[in-house]
């Protein structure tokens, strides 16, 4: 199985088998829900990892795009009469456009300055969502109409398990495709040496912007999927803490590793569920585990494990 993870289709096959097999051992619908949450979060993390792990640019405001996607499927059908699926695509387009407009000036910044600028963007989106309560329901959030496709209503946690699982497979495929293409190489090149990338003819601003827009679209789609699945949205989904959670998934799983993003999301979604036995110490335990694993697995869970088991690249 490990050898299979060396190839693009090997990884997809293993992931598909895991998605297909897990329901066989799920004792209740609660497990379907948690797993769906993992798939959606992993999808968003994979996109952010293209920006952070491949192109080496940080974003501390990515939940802003997640929120735009989520509120697009909430506001579109409720206030504007746009069908959910079209609202999802409109949310995507809006996220891509915003990423393009905001990214152009701020991606010229480096390191901490870029971090603060993206953070500002995220805070701004959350602020708009909270204050425009006539459209968004304000701090209380709002409910989302169910997704209907050709008369078929998508509801129930098992249905959403398959939808989000399929989405994750598609997102993984796209991210894996990027390696070994001129675009993917340009991302990695500008990450390692911006100056060398420039003199080799790479327009670094253009490629940073592409990575930013790709990551924004991923986050937006994930936000829409979660909103449709939950039937509800709230401003926290666009908030700073959620942005940090996304970054943590990427770094914990392994910068630049697609499989790592899935593992990082799984750990960060499931750990709190497991840690509920510690009751009021839950968050303390979660923080401690993250700190310890970053100390001992600086490169992230998957890259460190793959080095251990030599040979396969994730």
């Amino acid at each position, binding site marked *: 199985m490990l050898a299979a993870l060396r190839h693009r289709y090997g990884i997809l096959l293993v992931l598909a088998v895991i998605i297909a097999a897990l329901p066989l051992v799920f004792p209740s619908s609660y497990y379907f829900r948690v797993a769906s949450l993992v798939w959606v979060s992993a999808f968003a993390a994979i996109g952010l990892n293209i920006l952070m792990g491949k192109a080496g640019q940080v974003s501390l405001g990515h939940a802003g795009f997640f929120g735009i996607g989520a509120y697009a499927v909430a506001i579109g059908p409720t206030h504007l009469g746009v069908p959910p699926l079209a609202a999802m695509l409109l949310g995507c387009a809006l996220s891509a456009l915003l990423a393009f407009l905001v990214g152009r000036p701020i991606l010229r910044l480096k390191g901490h300055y870029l971090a603060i600028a993206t953070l500002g963007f995220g805070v701004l989106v959350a602020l708009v969502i909270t204050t425009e309560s006539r459209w968004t329901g304000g701090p209380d959030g709002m409910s989302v109409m169910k997704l209907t496709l050709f008369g078929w209503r998508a509801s129930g946690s098992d249905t959403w398990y398959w939808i989000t699982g399929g989405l994750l497979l598609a997102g993984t495929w796209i991210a894996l*495709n990027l390696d070994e293409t*001129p*675009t*993917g190489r340009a991302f*990695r090149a500008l990450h390692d*040496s911006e100056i060398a990338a420039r*003199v080799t003819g790479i327009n670094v601003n253009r490629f940073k912007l592409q990575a930013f827009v790709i990551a924004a679209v991923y986050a937006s789609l994930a936000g829409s999927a979660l909103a449709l699945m939950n039937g509800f949205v709230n401003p926290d989904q666009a908030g700073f803490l959620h942005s940090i959670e996304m970054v943590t998934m990427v770094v914990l799983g392994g910068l630049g590793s697609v499989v790592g993003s899935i593992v990082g999301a799984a750990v960060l979604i499931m750990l709190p569920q497991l840690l509920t036995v510690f009751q009021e110490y839950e968050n303390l335990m979660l923080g401690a585990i993250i700190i310890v694993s970053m100390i001992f697995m600086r490169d992230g869970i998957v890259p460190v494990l793959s080095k251990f088991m030599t040979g396969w690249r994730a």
Partner: protein
Amino acid sequence: MTILKVSDIGISFGGLKAIDGVGFSVEAGQIFSIIGPNGAGKTTLFNVISGIYEASQGRIELAGRDVTRLEPDALAARGLSRTFQNLQIFQRMTAVENVMVGRHLREKCNLFADLFRLPSVTHQNKETRAAALAFLDEVGLRDQADTPAGALSYGACKRLEIARALAAEPRVLLLDEPAAGCNSVETEEIDRLICRVAAKGIAVVLVEHDMKLVMKISNRILALERGRPLIEGSPGEVRANPAVLEAYLGKHGAREAARA
């Protein structure tokens, strides 16, 4: 035919003139060397020519066209390639991937084709890899194609940078101290490599401290001192001017050059 023409270049940092009134021109297939003590401004001049720094005065022409204010990537597209004195390799990529990046401008790069990795992308990737392997072969690194660049020796990294620069199939190649830190065998190899490159019609601009190498392979030499041109001429002319040489190479360098 003159490929690169640099005239009256000047640049200052905080009021201090790092380069002042430097000019030269290089023809296709020529090896043009720039020498001078540390801090003379050789690397700064390369940074100006390759568009990393913007000159405060002067003009740069590439193949007859004014390129003075162009960005590095635009200059690369017009046929300028370079290597760096302090290594700038893509550490987390393999040797062959480094050289494949060097082919960036020779590749079609379409985001949507790449996201879905269309058959044309896979096909092009095979071609790019084959071409990159040939360039690795050229610098003697074919065996280490799939080694992570971060794990290569210093000398190998120096040659990898040359392979990456050559992969763009440039008209002008700027080499900033390619033999620095290399042993005599490696220096020999780089010597032959530079001559082969020039023989292909590429104009080579070389910054190098190894006087033996410079005197042997250069068509012309420009000596800089504290950012100003001191003398330009053939190796014979420069060598025949020991007083000038001594001024910026020191007595030892002057003796070494005279022996060479």
